[in-house]
C-alpha cells in the first residue's frame, strides 16, 4: 500500500517547525544590535546570507538527485531534482533582490556586471530557469529526466566558482560573511551570529518543507501524465 499524501504527518509538522524557527530568528534579528559601520542595513544580511546558502543547497540537491537519477533511472530522483531546482529559483531570486537593495546604500549601485559574485549568481538563476525551459521542451519523460539531470550536474560547477569568487577576484562584493574554509571566523556581536544561525536553520527547514510539498505535487503530476500517455497508447492501439 502506498502512503497517500493526505496521510502524511511529517510535512505539516515540518511546516510548523519551520514557521516557529523563522519567527524565533526574526525576533533575534530585530533584537540584535545595529552594525558599527552598516547600522540597521546589516539586518538585510540575515535574509540575504541564508537565502544564498539555500541556493547552494538547492544546486547541491539538483546535482545529487540528478546524479542519483542517472545511476538508478528511478524517476523519484528526477522529481526531487526538479523540485530542488524550482526552490533554487525562489532562493536565488530572494538572494539577488536582497543583495541589490543592500548594495545601493552600501556600494552606491544596485548592480555591477564586472563583479564575479553578482554575475555568477545571476548565471545560477539563468541555469535554473534554463533547466525548466528544457524540461518544458521535451515530451518523452525518460529523455526529459536524463537531459535535466545532466544540466543539474553541469550547473553545479557554478557553485564553487560563486563561493570562491570573492577570494579569487576581489571586486565590490564583501568577502566571506562566515568563512567555512579552515577555522570558522566571525568577528561580531554573538547575537548577530545567533540571528544568522537561526535564520539559516529556518531557511534550511523551509527548503525541506517546500521540497516535500513539491515532491508530492510532482508525483501526482507524473501519475497524471502516465495515465494520459497510457490512454493515448490504448487509443492508438485500438485504431
Amino acid at each position: 500500500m502506498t502512503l497517500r499524501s493526505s496521510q502524511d504527518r511529517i510535512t505539516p509538522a515540518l511546516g510548523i517547525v519551520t514557521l516557529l524557527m523563522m519567527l524565533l530568528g526574526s525576533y533575534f534579528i530585530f533584537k540584535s544590535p545595529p552594525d558599527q559601520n552598516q547600522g540597521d542595513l546589516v539586518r538585510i544580511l540575515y535574509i540575504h546570507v541564508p537565502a544564498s546558502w539555500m541556493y547552494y543547497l538547492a544546486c547541491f540537491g539538483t546535482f545529487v538527485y540528478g546524479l542519483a537519477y542517472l545511476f538508478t533511472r528511478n524517476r523519484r530522483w528526477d522529481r526531487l531534482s526538479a523540485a530542488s531546482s524550482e526552490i533554487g529559483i525562489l532562493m536565488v531570486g530572494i538572494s539577488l533582490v536582497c543583495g541589490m537593495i543592500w548594495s545601493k546604500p552600501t556600494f552606491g549601485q544596485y548592480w555591477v556586471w564586472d563583479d564575479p559574485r553578482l554575475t555568477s549568481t545571476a548565471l545560477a538563476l539563468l541555469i535554473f530557469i534554463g533547466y525548466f525551459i528544457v524540461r518544458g521542451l521535451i515530451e518523452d519523460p525518460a529523455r526529459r529526466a536524463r537531459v535535466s539531470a545532466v544540466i543539474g550536474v553541469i550547473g553545479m560547477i557554478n557553485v564553487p566558482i560563486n563561493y570562491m569568487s570573492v577570494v579569487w577576484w576581489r571586486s565590490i562584493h564583501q568577502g566571506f560573511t562566515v568563512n567555512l574554509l579552515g577555522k570558522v571566523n566571525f568577528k561580531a556581536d554573538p547575537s548577530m551570529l545567533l540571528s544568522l544561525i537561526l535564520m539559516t536553520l529556518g531557511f534550511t527547514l523551509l527548503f525541506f518543507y517546500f521540497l516535500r510539498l513539491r515532491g508530492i505535487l510532482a508525483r501526482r503530476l507524473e501519475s497524471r501524465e502516465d495515465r494520459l500517455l497510457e490512454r493515448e497508447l490504448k487509443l492508438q492501439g485500438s485504431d
Partner: protein
Amino acid sequence: MFGLDKYWVFVVPIYVITILATLAYWGFLLRRLRDTRADDQLEVSEHDRH
C-alpha cells in the same frame, strides 16, 4: 550610522519581499496540491489494484 529613513527604505522592503515571495510560492504549491488531490487517490487505488 544610517537613519530611520534607510531602515524603512531598505530593510523593511527586504522582509516584505521575502515574506511575499515565500507566501506566493507556498500558496502556489498548496493550490496545485488541492487541484491534483484526485490524482493522488487514483495513484493509490491503481497501486493497490496491481
